[in-house]
């Protein structure tokens, strides 16, 4: 019985620790700007210090921020799509074929996963300006692809290894063409893995900050995280905390929805990719 109570208390503590900052930033986004300027140290908006939806309205009316959302969605989706295609080919080869250089691929992707990203921004900044990729969508998509490939390759090859590939031959023996066997048997089995890799890749691209601030300079390609950090408002000496909070909440909604829907897949992807379970 003692054990039981301990688990319940543990669970409650975990919930508080994980969700408190989220609740806090939501609460902050409903405080009025006047209340923030004078200081309102409570967790919830004080009486008369609430702003209703005003902050959200203000953020949404901000041209720069709307562009940033569009950039983030576009860049992250394209990078995810391309990265998953390239990673699927590589992971298929790693999981199913015996070839020289397999170890090398795994070593390189491990090394890239640990690469200090900031080391690259200097030379990339210089190169991208020279070839005209600076402050453009492809200028961000290319580095995002390179840095999401390791995770995607790992996750996918772990998934592909579990697929009973013999079923494809069984289908062919039963009279299916090789294309039919591939589409009707292998694709449905591989789809969950590909999907999981796509979610994790999207998370990375959506979360990136270093490339976002150093390889862009205008709203042409600046993604949400960078845009939030440069968002100073009318008074540069007093950051508009409540506006920033509203912007942060808007930027977080898509990801939270994904987490809520695909919780199981994300857990499976992260755990199977790293350590065999």
């Amino acid at each position, binding site marked *: 019985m003692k054990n039981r109570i301990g688990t319940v208390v543990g669970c409650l503590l975990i919930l508080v620790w994980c969700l408190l900052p989220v609740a806090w930033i939501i609460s902050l986004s409903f405080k009025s700007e006047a209340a923030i300027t004078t200081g309102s140290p409570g967790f919830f908006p004080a009486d008369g210090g609430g702003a209703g939806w005003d902050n959200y309205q203000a953020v949404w009316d901000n041209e720069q921020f709307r562009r940033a959302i569009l950039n983030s969605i576009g860049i992250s989706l394209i990078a995810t799509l391309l990265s998953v295609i390239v990673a699927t080919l590589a992971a298929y080869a790693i999981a199913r074929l*015996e070839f020289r250089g397999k170890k090398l691929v795994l070593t390189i992707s491990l090394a890239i996963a640990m690469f200090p990203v900031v080391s690259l921004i200097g030379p990339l900044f210089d190169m991208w300006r020279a070839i005209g990729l600076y402050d453009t969508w492809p200028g961000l998509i290319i580095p995002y692809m390179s840095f999401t490939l390791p995770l995607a390759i790992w996750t996918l090859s772990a998934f592909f290894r579990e697929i009973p590939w013999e079923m494809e031959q069984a289908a062919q023996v039963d009279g299916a063409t090789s294309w039919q066997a591939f589409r009707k048997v292998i694709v449905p089995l591989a789809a969950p893995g590909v999907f999981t890799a796509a979610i994790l890749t999207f998370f990375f691209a959506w979360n990136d900050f270093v490339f976002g601030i150093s390889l862009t300079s205008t709203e042409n390609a600046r993604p949400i995280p960078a845009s939030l950090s440069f968002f100073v408002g009318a008074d540069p000496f007093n950051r508009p905390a409540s506006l920033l909070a509203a912007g942060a909440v808007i930027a977080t909604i898509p990801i939270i929805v994904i987490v809520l829907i695909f919780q199981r897949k994300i857990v499976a992807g992260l755990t199977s990719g790293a350590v065999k379970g």
Partner: protein
Amino acid sequence: MSTTSVPAAALPAQKSGQRSGPSDRAKAETRLGQKLVAPAIVLMLVVTAFPMLRAIYLSTFDYALTAPDDREFVGLGNYLTALTDPLFWQTTGVTVLYMVVTVAVELVIGFIFAMVMHRVIFARGVIRTSILVPYGIITVVSGFAWQFAFSFQNGFINGWLPFVGDEFNWFGETTPAVIAIMVSEIWKTTPFMSLLLLAGLAQVSEDMIEAAKVDGATWTQRLTKVILPNMRAAIMVAVLFRALDAYRIFDNIFVMTAGAQRTESISFLTYRQTIEQFQLGLGSALSVLLFLSVLLVAFLIVKLFRVDLAQARQES
């Protein structure tokens, strides 16, 4: 897509372990495999190896974008400048501190989370989802949330904590500012750690724990003698990944203090020299030093803890 369906028909036999000289089929398999991984390799190298070589080249010049025509070869001068500057050593020290403290704390919290996720029977979905929530939050947003929470003007933490005054400014001195940054970093990255540990925990066989229980082992004994030794590989991989990630800490510092109060990490210093002050020569030297120090950290962890990466990759 048709390329992927070809080998299935042509190569029914996998794992052909015979060493009787490469057959035509083995050669074809090698060629196909190399073709399939080529795009991934090229992409990964184009954005890392090539710029890294360029950084090494640039680091030998006194080169600032503000005066591009005054580019001048200085050999190892930039490295000397960086390595003799106390600022470099101070930021390295702070970075190592971030790494050691956050990884140690996360290992403990992450293990508790993993235990709860593994054992809990009720509300499993809710708990797993909440543990994942910080993983989904953008680091910049996490930085803002904690910065405002620690703020003495608008934050709630001073009011909630009994041992600090209401007017205490967390970002006015090095130590509290570093603590605030660490809290944000720990909050954001613990889910990753606990998921890796959960995978390891799932590997420990229940029978073994049950047997220890029958033999009269206490809970502590079961934990230290059965559970932990059996998930050693998972713990080491989690530590390695998180340590290297923590060593590259950047986003939280940028958002929370912008490097003020000597909270700057080595990544932040490199960024500031390159992008904000346009010192490409010195910045590149710092880039190379950062790269080398990450290699050193990785090497030390792998050697000290004898991490078996092959086991982590389930590649035997």
